[in-house]
């Protein structure tokens, strides 16, 4: 039997290989993210101060909306041709399948961030390439992806999965989105760390709770 981490790596490798061969997901996410950033930019004609105030909200709205595309696809891919059954037949802890898919989804969102952050920094005239906002991006994305991957697995079994995922996901990730916006805004507006720490703590707690929950319940979620 394979070790836990070799199963995680195998699932991660498989998701990356499927994306490399099909080139469907990242292109769609990137196009969507760029469009959202541009629409916000041209619809909100704001002065420099107001622009800085809304900048973090625009960024996280972009990540959340574009990320949903990727999460939706993540388990639809597994349902096509019954591939999920093939995964579930393997003699591995089923949470390893979850963590493999979580890492793949996280990587896709990080790639999205690498391409969209420079455009965003240019249009909103903010410097996001400093440790604080990057840390918030990493923590916020981890929580968002942990919740999203679990819910995508649940929604993929339903016929109305395309509608179901956003309906389930957005209420659940509101805490992480609001906190990430607050923390990002704090860093971008130069607040002292003592005002930002509470938000970072909430993000860390949310990530841990979602990861632990997913570890415990994923087996039941994919069970028939």
């Amino acid at each position, binding site marked *: *039997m*394979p*070790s836990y981490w*070799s*199963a995680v*790596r*195998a699932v991660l*490798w*498989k998701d990356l*290989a*499927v994306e490399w*061969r*099909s080139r469907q997901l990242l292109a769609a996410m990137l196009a969507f993210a760029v469009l959202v950033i541009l629409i916000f930019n041209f619809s909100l004609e704001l002065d420099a101060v107001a622009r800085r105030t809304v900048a973090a909200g625009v960024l996280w709205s972009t990540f959340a909306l574009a990320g949903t595309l990727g999460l939706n696809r993540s388990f639809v*891919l597994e349902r*096509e*041709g*019954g*591939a999920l*059954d*093939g*995964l*579930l*037949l*393997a*003699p*591995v*802890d089923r949470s390893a399948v979850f963590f493999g898919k979580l890492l793949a989804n996280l990587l896709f969102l990080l790639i999205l961030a690498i391409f969209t952050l420079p455009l965003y920094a240019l249009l909103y005239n903010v410097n996001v390439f400093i440790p604080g906002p990057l840390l918030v991006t990493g923590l916020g994305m981890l929580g968002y992806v942990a919740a999203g991957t679990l819910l995508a697995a649940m929604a993929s079994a339903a016929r109305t999965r395309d509608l179901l995922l956003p309906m389930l996901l957005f209420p659940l990730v509101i805490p992480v989105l609001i906190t990430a916006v607050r923390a990002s805004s704090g860093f971008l507006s130069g607040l002292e760390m003592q005002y930002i720490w509470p938000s970072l703590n909430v993000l860390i707690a949310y990530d841990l709770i979602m990861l632990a929950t997913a570890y415990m319940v994923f087996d039941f979620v994919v*069970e*028939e």
Partner: protein
Amino acid sequence: MIAVRGLAKRFGYRWVLRNLDLDVAPGEIVALLGPNGAGKTTLLRILAALAKPSLGQVSVAGARLPDEARSARAQLGFVAHQPMLYADLSAADNLRFFARLYGLDGGRVWELLETVGLAGLDRQPVRSFSRGMQQRLSIARALLHRPRVLLLDEAHSSLDQEAAARLDGLLAELAAEGCAILLASHDLARASMLASRIAVLTDGHIAAEIPRADFTDDLAGRYQAAVEAARA
């Protein structure tokens, strides 16, 4: 190798399997025949640890289900209706991925591609394969880890005559090596050729078992009589 006692499975208010007993010994090929909706696929999914029984005891390769499902999964191969493959990956990449999930190296991949006659097409994406070629690759996937128990759900469907004959030979070889094989099928002629026993599944339970010694010219009549007697 497969032991089922008093198995029942309920979906909502409907009992799909009721009080089902079945044994398959090592080296035995048992054909599971029955009309549509009799519960063949549900039974195979329970044996493959993909679904849980509502009642009863199920043991596969010495592992009790569902408690010891992981141990059972390490020793069973399952060919289902759906190919369980990734359409965008090549044939070799699909097998390589599943081999990694079973902790195997890549050598077995090429051996099996050769066995199912797909060696020259290893770099082709599965999306470009016909249904029959996908079925051959699915058979290779199920055999990667040299399972001691093999479950096949209509495995001959979509295969051309040559591939079907190749599969027949492969199943006979595996049985000779001690693999327990349960083959769900609608093809009575093929079942009578391959199996050492035919189990007739009707309305969720085994209505009759016909041993090879009783395979006569009127096997179809006996099968039909068993189905109708169970319905009466």
